[in-house]
């Protein structure tokens, strides 16, 4: 089986399962909605700065990723399908397929979160293309890290809320760049030119994270 073929098979399997139960999507969207509404209620009518707005947006995205995406491998363990997956496809295909699935979920979260923020916090996006680029690149890095760590916690005996603890220290460089990139996109000004460094950092971060994760994944996946 070619690499692309195997990856696609894993992604297709996850998409089908998700369409059947719609558990992850519903949970993620409800989480995003309720946490953003909580933010809106507690902020009230006060004007908040673009920096704070982008920070709030990203903290909600980060928390929903750490809560919703952690199930990718735990679910396989619970269903008892890990062995089958291990027999049929290589580790890197599993990682790539799960990464693609998580990335798609995160893109959905991005769209909903941005729409809700725009609606209730009165968001003016000065450079929409830049915002989309920052969201997509940030989500790619986020999905890359979350997928490997989800495989790690699936091996742990006491899972609990382990994923956020492992995830947040690793994501600080990403959070810093993504928040300042989002701020540039909201505030306008120099737009693309001002956020060039942030985009380069995000692309580099996603590249390094995913490369390292592919290299390390087999050690977590194989027993």
């Amino acid at each position, binding site marked *: 089986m070619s690499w692309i073929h195997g990856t696609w098979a894993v992604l297709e399997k996850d998409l089908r399962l998700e369409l059947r139960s719609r558990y992850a999507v519903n949970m993620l969207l409800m989480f995003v909605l309720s946490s953003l509404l909580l933010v809106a209620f507690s902020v009230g009518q006060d004007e908040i700065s673009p920096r704070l707005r982008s920070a709030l947006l990203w903290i909600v995205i980060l928390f929903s990723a750490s809560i919703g995406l952690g199930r990718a491998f735990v679910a396989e363990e619970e269903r008892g399908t890990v062995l089958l997956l291990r027999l049929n496809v290589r580790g890197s295909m599993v990682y790539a397929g799960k990464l693609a699935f998580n990335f798609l979920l995160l893109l959905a979260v991005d769209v909903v979160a941005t729409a809700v923020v725009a609606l209730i916090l009165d968001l003016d996006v000065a450079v929409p293309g830049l915002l989309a680029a920052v969201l997509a690149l940030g989500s790619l890095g986020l999905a890359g890290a979350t997928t490997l760590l989800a495989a790690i916690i699936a091996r742990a*005996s006491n899972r609990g809320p*382990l994923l956020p603890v*492992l995830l947040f220290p690793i994501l600080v*460089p990403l959070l*810093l760049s993504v928040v300042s990139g989002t701020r540039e996109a909201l505030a306008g000004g120099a737009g693309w030119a001002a956020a060039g460094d942030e985009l380069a950092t995000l692309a580099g971060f996603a590249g390094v994270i995913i490369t390292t994760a592919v290299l390390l994944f087999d050690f977590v996946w194989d027993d």
Partner: protein
Amino acid sequence: MPFEQTAVDVRRYRIIRTVILVWLTAVILAAFLLPIPRINILEHTARNLYFHVPMWFTMMAAVFVSAWHSLQVLRGGGLIRDIRALQAARVGAAFGIMGLVTGIVWSKYTWYVGTDVWWNFDPRQTMAALQLLIYGAYFVLRTAVDEPERRARVAAVYNLFAAVTVPFLLYVLPRQLQSLHPGADGNPAFSEITHPIMRLIFYPAVIGFIGLFWVLYTQRVRIAAVKLRVTRDPEN
């Protein structure tokens, strides 16, 4: 069995340990007793240079040692490598906490005197705090996995994965936060603003504290290895 690797020449070990402890004692005495040039505001707090900066160097050394042994775990080094990675991380975290505390107290009464600021978002301070956070997560992860072999592998993967992200901070943080540290943000380099007599004690202090790390680290590794041999159950 992997335990034979820990068999050391006890005589040689004791000699090296004694040399390090005598060396460090001499450095500490010199750090407190030798005269230093007077600088406004800094005054005698400048002596903290002999303690604060070597703590950082030692933590960085410990981070490298820990990551190296984590890599060896993945290359089939066995449980002894996992013990080494863990103990290097623990001793390194202790040095990191001491570096953070000495830095916070020092800067509170010099750089930020009159501002009443305890925590300042200096890039180096933030980076050190993050390294401690990573080790905290690493220790928590270890307690969550029961089976020793699996714990060794999973913890090694996390340690290496986190180590890869830290260099990004070197690039991201200085662009967003301002630093008062020498050598950062176009500040004059350490060697330009430090009097030769202070450097005469500073470099031996770096060697001394890295030596202290080595003593503590090897001691803990040997205790953990004995514990593993006796109980068959490594500590986590």
